[in-house]
């Protein structure tokens, strides 16, 4: 990545980090209800992949998906307003934290049933091929999803049909509260399974935005050129627990410490320094991010609640919800 591209990527990652911190704080102050699955620590995967994709490509994410919505152009205000049950939220407050979606920019949803969106991404890739475009689709998922049937059905179908789809596993070492290694028969939960479907399984440092971008770009080129699906296992780590209810005390202190020293933002700062980008430029990016997120929090706070009548809309394509005559 060139210096200006990397600086832009850094700023986007900082925006994700700041937004997730704001989401955490808003939850603690009672302004976000339900639950949140924060992606702090996973920023480089969303931002690196996004830098390698085209605006018309399709992205499918999980309930831990704030970073993907932001990386695909959703604003912090739209995201935080959704979390805060405001009418101005991305989904009009009908979705919440687990379902952030920005279809207009190809972010086709965040899905909260583990693994369900992998076949959907295969289908979107199938559609691109049928329509004669060279778009690709990408499904991001956690390590836990590699033990569910939909993962395996999607990989097989995508391989058999040679679909232009990428499967990107965000392996943060824990399926919810349990170490993935304790419940998986192979060391690399995603990459080691790829061979069973004739797909190359690649592993990448998911905290290094440059390496993620390179890996996704290579697989995307292959997929676009008709060589079929790609699978990338990106190693990363959660800065928070699984969800809001989880303080993540089950993780060994030395493991947490090791990963916090391998932080995506720190890595990017180091690379920027090596490229000769002045520290002030990075500080300015941080300042812009801080200002943008503070403004987003304020705007979301002041936004109206949804009109209760909206609960009975949007079931059908005509906008309504009538199930009988």
């Amino acid at each position, binding site marked *: 990545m060139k210096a200006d591209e990397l600086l832009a990527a850094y700023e986007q990652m900082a925006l994700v980090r700041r937004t997730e911190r704001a989401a955490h704080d808003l939850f603690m102050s009672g302004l976000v209800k339900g639950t949140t699955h924060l992606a702090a620590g996973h920023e480089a995967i969303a931002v690196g992949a996004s830098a390698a994709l085209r605006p018309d490509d399709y992205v499918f994410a999980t309930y831990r998906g704030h970073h993907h919505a932001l990386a695909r152009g959703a604003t912090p205000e739209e995201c935080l307003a959704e979390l805060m049950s405001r009418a101005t939220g991305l989904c009009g407050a009908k979705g919440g934290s687990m*379902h952030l*979606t920005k279809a207009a920019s190809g972010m086709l*949803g965040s899905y909260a049933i583990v693994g369900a969106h992998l076949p959907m991404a295969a*289908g979107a890739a199938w*559609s691109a091929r049928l329509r004669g475009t060279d778009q690709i689709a990408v499904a991001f998922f956690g390590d836990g999803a590699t033990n569910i*049937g939909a993962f395996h059905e999607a990989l097989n179908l995508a391989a058999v049909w040679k679909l232009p789809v990428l499967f990107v596993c965000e392996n943060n070492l824990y399926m919810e509260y349990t170490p993935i290694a304790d419940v998986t028969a192979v060391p690399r939960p995603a990459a080691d399974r790829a061979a069973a479907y004739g797909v190359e399984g690649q592993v990448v440092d998911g905290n290094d935005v440059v390496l993620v971008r390179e890996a996704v770009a290579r697989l995307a080129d292959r997929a676009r050129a008709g060589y079929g699906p790609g699978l990338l296992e990106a190693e990363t780590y959660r800065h928070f627990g699984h969800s809001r209810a989880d303080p993540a005390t089950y993780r060994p202190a030395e493991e947490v410490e090791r990963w916090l020293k391998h932080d995506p933002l720190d890595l990017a700062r180091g690379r920027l320094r090596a490229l000769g980008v002045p520290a002030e430029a990075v500080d300015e990016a941080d300042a812009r991010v801080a200002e943008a997120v503070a403004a987003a929090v304020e705007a979301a706070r002041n936004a109206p609640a949804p009109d209760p009548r909206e609960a009975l809309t*949007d079931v059908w394509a005509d906008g309504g919800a009538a199930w009988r005559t």
Partner: protein
Amino acid sequence: MADMTTATPGAPAGAAAARVITYREAVAEGIAREMRRDPTVVCLGEDIGAAGGVFKTTVGLLKEFGPERVWDTPISEQAIVGAAMGAAMTGMRPVAEIMFSDFLACCWDYLANEIPKVRYMTGGQVTVPLVVRTANGGGLGFGAQHSQATENWAFTVPGLKIAAPATPADVIGMMAAAIRSDDPVVFYEHKGLFAAKGPPAPPGHVVELGRAAVLREGADVTLVALASMVPVALAAAERLAAEDIDAEVIDLRCLVPLDTTTVLASLARTSRLVTVEENPYQGGWGATLVSVVADEGFGLLDAPLRRVAGECVPLPFADALEERVIPTVDKVVAKVRDLATY
């Protein structure tokens, strides 16, 4: 799995010109008509291409439209319906086949959690114009895992439209409406009706979803039926006529939208209702229908609401046992006779 069909392979393109068409031919004809008019319509499912479907309901489609529009899949129900969903969200109109409706359970996440909810939970950002076709129902001795009438499963989930035609012409007309619908439709094709014959549908035939058909007018009692229970209800009405009981028969055609207007209008004439359902009494669609009638049509009634439905047991194999479980003409006649003297 063995070939479970007995009919001779049909040629859908020629079938429209025939004087009669079978229900199974109507399925392929209905799909083919839409594929001819709309290039975004594609089919996927197990054995639907070269094999023409295990029920021969997709015969001729691969030959006419080629492998870029008719796709054989692995036995992967989640991949089939999940891929159909992803394609529907991105500009296609997929028609996915789940071979037996019992197998909907293998991809129930998509029918229960994904397809009917994605439009709503995204605040209307995406549309899912897809059809999930499936062979439904019993009476053929396929046993507990290949015989269920599962229309009531789909009926528990807001956000799915549910079609279940009873005649070849309705198969074609409702298939057109289902494929053209911008909403997801579960399309139940009844295994017991595949060999049934009827008049072909005229060109451009479309039967709007949510419009019940009054097939027989009567003054004494209204029978409301769906799919294979429609001929059962009609046969029962003939027998009852010999006893001077004049039954009106309504083919509901769809469960969602549910045409309660037609049912309530009928009750204004007959004042008595019997539902004829293949799905189990426990959680069957008739329970919802009679609850609407009890709520909004109580003043129309002269007698209790009655339901003839499947027994609340798994489907047994032997004919003698299966007939005990599924509604029959005898059971309907007995129930109506009893109600007429109330």
